[in-house]
């Protein structure tokens, strides 16, 4: 009811029009009773249009309006206080008011003096918005972020700290120091000072419930207010568990394959050893029976006994070779001159090759880098491969039989050896089995040579494999790492 008779009519020219402050007077019903010209102008309004209107209708429509109205009601009950609101037709201005209640006759009025704080407000809003942005980002990433000073006292705690640590923001703030979350002595101060950042520190922590988490912690030097260290903690427990179970699975797999190759080995071993043992038993029983029967010729007995002896040696030989196969200790590795080693090995087989009418070709340049190897072991492998090739060529009975040994640098840190023959070759099925212990295609063979060779090469960190040749034969290859400290560097050895 604007202009009611009982109300004191405040003079329009209260003498406050020229002051810098905005002046606003409302009554108990929050009707505007007076505005000075500064106040009206700030809102882009005329004083006449404002006076008599309810303040609610004048305040810009925003989320704050209800709270402002309620606040003024509260202030009217007391002696006054501070309040803020948006002002003007478009609510573009921000005004901070200082209010006092004024009892005038029967009426209680609230007299507010305001300052236009729009500029400060806008800059604060931009800051608050970016603050909110950071808060939302930090609450929604799974990493926990802290800033501390050099003693570890928190200067910033991310709001989502509970995700990893189980403690609420407030609880962590109460803990006060990062040591209570991550433990002491996580960061080497000197290292941090030098590097500026320490990455991927792995730390096992217990959360509020006592659950163990594995964290990857990054610490970075910063300078934000009092904060000097930025901690970023990532929970890698699940990943670690996956890795762990993967490792476990792999080790079980390796064990299974070891067991299965043990099975192959023992089965083969039983067969191989039983052959000579059964032969020994048969031959000696034959002798016994003939002697008992009284009708024996000594040549016949002699022949049998020679066989007994030969078979006993055969059994011993199997055991000897088996011991070589399972030998696991690493023999003494030395820096080896490759061409020299190959020449020595070839010398040992040259006679046998000549006897078979087989030509041995060697291609191993003096410029090859040295290798770090057990020279005797590698020579044994070469000999074995060449002797196998000679056997294969003997079975083949072909024109111009030859064995080619070739050594070349196959990679920056690798020397490859190849022993090729032009014999009958091996079927895909045979190629797949040649390295199995006791597998042999030879009537006299024991099937251990390649298995032993394989284990020698593997001890050197290399591997031995076989490929068929275009001309029908087989090439066995193995690669060995070059010496870490080269004894001699040839042109091909520079990398």
């Amino acid at each position: 009811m604007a202009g009611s008779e009982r109300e004191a009519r405040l003079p329009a020219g209260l003498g406050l029009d020229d002051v810098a402050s905005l002046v606003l007077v409302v009554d108990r019903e929050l009707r505007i009773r007076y505005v000075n010209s500064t106040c009206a102008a700030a809102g882009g309004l005329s004083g006449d249009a404002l006076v008599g209107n309810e303040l609610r209708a004048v305040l810009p429509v925003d989320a704050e309006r209800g709270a402002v109205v309620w606040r003024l009601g509260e202030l009217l009950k007391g002696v006054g206080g501070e309040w803020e609101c948006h002002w003007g037709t478009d609510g573009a201005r921000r005004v901070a008011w200082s209010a006092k209640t004024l009892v005038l006759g029967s009426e209680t009025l609230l007299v507010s003096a305001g300052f236009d704080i729009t500029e400060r407000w806008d800059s604060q809003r931009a800051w608050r918005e970016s603050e909110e942005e950071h808060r939302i980002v930090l609450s929604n990433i799974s990493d926990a972020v802290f800033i501390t000073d050099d003693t570890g006292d928190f200067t910033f705690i991310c709001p989502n700290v509970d995700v990893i640590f189980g403690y609420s923001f407030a609880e962590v703030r109460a803990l006060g120091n990062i040591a209570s979350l991550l433990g002491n002595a996580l960061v080497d101060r000197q290292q941090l000072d030098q590097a500026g950042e320490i990455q991927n520190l792995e730390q096992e922590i217990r959360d509020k419930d006592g659950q163990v988490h594995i964290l990857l912690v990054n610490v970075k030097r910063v300078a934000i207010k009092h904060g000097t260290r930025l901690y970023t903690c990532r929970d890698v427990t699940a990943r670690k568990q996956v890795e762990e179970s993967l490792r476990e699975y792999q080790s079980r797999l390796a064990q299974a394959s070891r067991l299965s190759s043990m099975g192959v080995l023992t089965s083969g071993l039983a067969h191989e050893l039983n052959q000579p043992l059964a032969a020994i038993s048969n031959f000696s029983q034959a002798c016994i029976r003939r002697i008992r029967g009284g009708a024996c010729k000594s040549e016949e007995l002699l022949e049998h006994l020679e066989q007994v002896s030969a078979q006993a040696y055969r059994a011993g030989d199997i055991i000897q070779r088996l011991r070589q196969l399972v030998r696991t200790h690493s023999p003494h590795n030395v820096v080896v001159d490759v061409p020299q080693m190959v020449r020595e090995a070839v010398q040992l087989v040259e006679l046998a090759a000549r006897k078979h009418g087989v030509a041995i070709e060697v291609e191993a340049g003096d410029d090859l880098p040295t290798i770090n190897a057990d020279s005797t072991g590698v020579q044994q492998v070469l000999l074995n491969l060449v002797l196998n090739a000679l056997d294969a060529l003997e079975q083949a009975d072909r024109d111009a039989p030859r064995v080619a040994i070739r050594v070349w640098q196959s990679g920056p840190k690798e020397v490859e050896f190849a022993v090729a023959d032009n014999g009958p070759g091996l079927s895909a099925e045979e190629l797949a089995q040649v390295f199995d212990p006791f597998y042999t295609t030879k009537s006299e063979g024991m099937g251990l040579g390649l298995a032993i060779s394989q284990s020698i090469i593997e001890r050197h960190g290399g591997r031995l494999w076989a490929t068929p040749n275009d001309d029908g034969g087989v090439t066995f290859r193995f690669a060995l790492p070059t010496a870490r400290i080269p004894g001699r560097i040839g042109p091909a050895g520079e990398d």
Partner: protein
Amino acid sequence: MNPEPTIFVVDDDQAARSSLKALAESVGYAAECFDSAQAFLEAYDADRPGCVVLDVRMRGMSGLELQDDLATRGVGIPIIFVTGHGDIPMAVRAMRCGAMDFIEKPYRDQVLLDRIQQAIERDASARQREAVRSSIQQRLETLTPRESEVLDKVLEGKTNKEIAADLGISVRAVESHRARVMERTEADSVAELVRMVLTVRPAEG
């Protein structure tokens, strides 16, 4: 037909072969060695009696494959398997296919010799049965169709009169055919005649 039984040793291991041969010969058997299943198949004459001592694991055709092959060809010579390292499925398969035994190395020589002895006896009696069977078969095959008909009726237990009526011939003619049947089969009695026919056609009934 060679009446002397022979031990056929099939093993790709030279020492195993020759030692088995030596053992067999030391107790008076004749023995022959083959270094592969193929070599044995090529050389073996099914009429030769004896038994096969066979290694399970051999390069090329395995012992079990040789057993299958012999069975397919209808060769019934007994087989004793010896193996350096056998397993149960192998043994089960070998025995199910009619092997005499499946002996694992190392074995007592006496065990092997006993089994060889049994195998040779089994082979001999099988061959004996086969000889009798084929002799009866040959004799039955000399009968004329009419005589065969009369034989069938006799086996059904019919009297000469009934046979004569069935075949529409005289009783005298039946008697004559019947006498020829007895003569040609060399049977002394009807009972023996029945036994002989059952030997050749055991499944009948």
